[in-house]
């Protein structure tokens, strides 16, 4: 029901909520964290080195973070992305679930978010009327080149 793409029955919504709670541990658990620290961060650092040769100080980062946005926080701690005191000017997050979108938005402050299904975004089936494609030279956005 909360997803914008289709209507859910009350039963479906309960199932989805239970599943979300059940899998919350996957995002906050030790294994995921190990992967973040040992694989994701080094890959991003490697990428940052390349990007810095092109004159950028920080990465632009498109993320499908869950509600805690742990990856964004780790990248901030590792100084890979810019934090300007209010939010992350070069980060864009994507989330289809309204409730989760709200939590991410509250956690990340002044950071751009797209409320859409990622597969729709990739297949360009997102509701284009509700998205303004950023002009070249502005902050990264849907339709704008994002880098990692």
């Amino acid at each position: 029901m909360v997803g914008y793409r289709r209507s859910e029955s009350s039963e479906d919504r309960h199932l989805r909520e239970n599943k979300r709670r059940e899998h919350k541990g996957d995002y906050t658990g030790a294994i995921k964290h190990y992967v973040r620290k040992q694989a994701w961060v080094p890959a991003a650092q490697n990428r940052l080195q390349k990007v810095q040769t092109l004159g950028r100080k920080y990465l632009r980062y498109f993320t499908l973070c869950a509600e805690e946005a742990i990856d964004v926080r780790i990248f901030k701690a590792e100084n890979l992305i810019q934090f300007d005191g209010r939010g992350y000017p070069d980060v864009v997050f994507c989330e289809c679930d309204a409730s989760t979108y709200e939590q991410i938005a509250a956690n990340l402050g002044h950071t751009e978010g797209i409320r859409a299904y990622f597969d729709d975004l990739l297949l360009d089936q997102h509701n284009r009327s509700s998205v303004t494609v950023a002009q070249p030279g502005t902050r990264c956005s849907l339709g704008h080149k994002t880098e990692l």
Partner: protein
Amino acid sequence: MPEPERIAINVAVSVLADISLGIYRTPANALKELVSNAFDADATRVVISTGFPHFHTMTCRDNGNGMSVLEFKEIMSRIGGSAKREGGTRQFTDKGRPIIGKIGIGILAVAQICRRFTIISSQSNSDTKFEAVIDFEGLATEEAKTIPLGSEEARRIGSYVLVEDLPEDRDAHYTRIILEEVGPGFKDRLLGVPEMKIREFRLRKGDPKTLSEFVEWLTQTSVCEISAYNRLLWELGVICPVPYLEDGPIKGHDVLAEVKRTLHDYGFTVKIDGLELRKPILFPTSPEIRSRGEDYEIYPIEFDDIVEGKRLAFNGYIYHQRLSIMPPELRGLLVRMRNVAIGMYDKSLLNYPKAQGPRMAGLSGEIYVEAGLEDALNVDRNSFRETDPHYLKLQEVVYTRLGGDKESKIPGIFSDISKRSRGWNAARREAEAMQERDSFLARIEALSGKSFEIESCQDESVVPVEVDIDRGRIVIYEQHPIFPRARAARGFLEKILIAYEIANKTAESKDAVHKEFYQFLTEH
């Protein structure tokens, strides 16, 4: 004769649309209602995300008491019949905050932003939450004009889908509102579409990271000239019951001490897009006045009495500084009820009947209403009914404070401002005259090679100016009839006479006097 028939009056659903779409004039006013609801729910933290820079999806969450499903259903079953104050008997929340909401139309503020939104809420000691998707899609249609409120057809105009008993942590308590597909009008307003069409409009760019930085930045500009998005942040700061900046509202003065303490004790914080709001009011707004200190004055204003059988009590301040207040949006008078601003700064000073010219540019004030004026408040919570006895009394008190009391002959703020202005102007003119004399003497010294000092003398003399070359002394006889009263003409004549006297005493021949005299005047 048959008995006259009593027929019920029906109201069309479109009335709801007219109210919901018309009462909140600016984006900040619509969001203010969400903040006020959170305040009434004893929240300590409100986080708003506007969906900057595209404003497709807005979200608002607070950690207040939340709602039970029953409470939610109750609200939705009678919008406009708020249970918040329980028939007027409940005036304070459990935490002792004065309840802002009165008739429960805050939900309509959301309908102005978008027609479809989600509310998720949970209360502590409950291990469930509910989600409701509210749809006002049919509200502003032509069909709505013909459908009576409360009828079966009205369901097509506005309805909600509710999912109850979703699992939640037992100690979680919050209300979260997700506004999807924000309306194009609201979006365009925030994107500043109308302003961008004006050819001469030059947007002052800036993205303040803290409120203090924002306030400092605005002392150089007008709120009208910043982006609509930044204007939203500024207006929300002014309107909401958030604390002042540390030194606010007047640096170095303990103005509104009790109000400040109360606001602080509420522990109510509002964060919008990562920026924690404070009241962006910090006087003096001019660095020049801040350093000098004496160029402003603070006038307290207070009233507490029974008016038409009901108590009316308010207190506040009126501040005046010599230079114009920047941003100009801070000029005028702001009335706050239950700590929330009613409208914005009123430059007319509640329609003060006498024009005050440029003096108004340096004047700003806030009035906190402690009791009364409730009946005078219009449904938009942005203005007052000007025929209400409490409002009339407020006007009267403000007018007499500003313009003085005819009966008791107590002078008002404006006459004090005039008095102080005369003092400022005299001091300024004195300083300018001194500066002018100094530069004239420096010029004479450069041309004649001699330094002089000017002395003013009130004695009578046959000559207006005397020059003693040997002692380097010039005496001006101020009372001499040759001097006109007009200050500029007087200064000019003084210079001519001094130049003549010096030339006369230093030149060797008549021709040299002539030459030197004109040289003095020309060079200066």
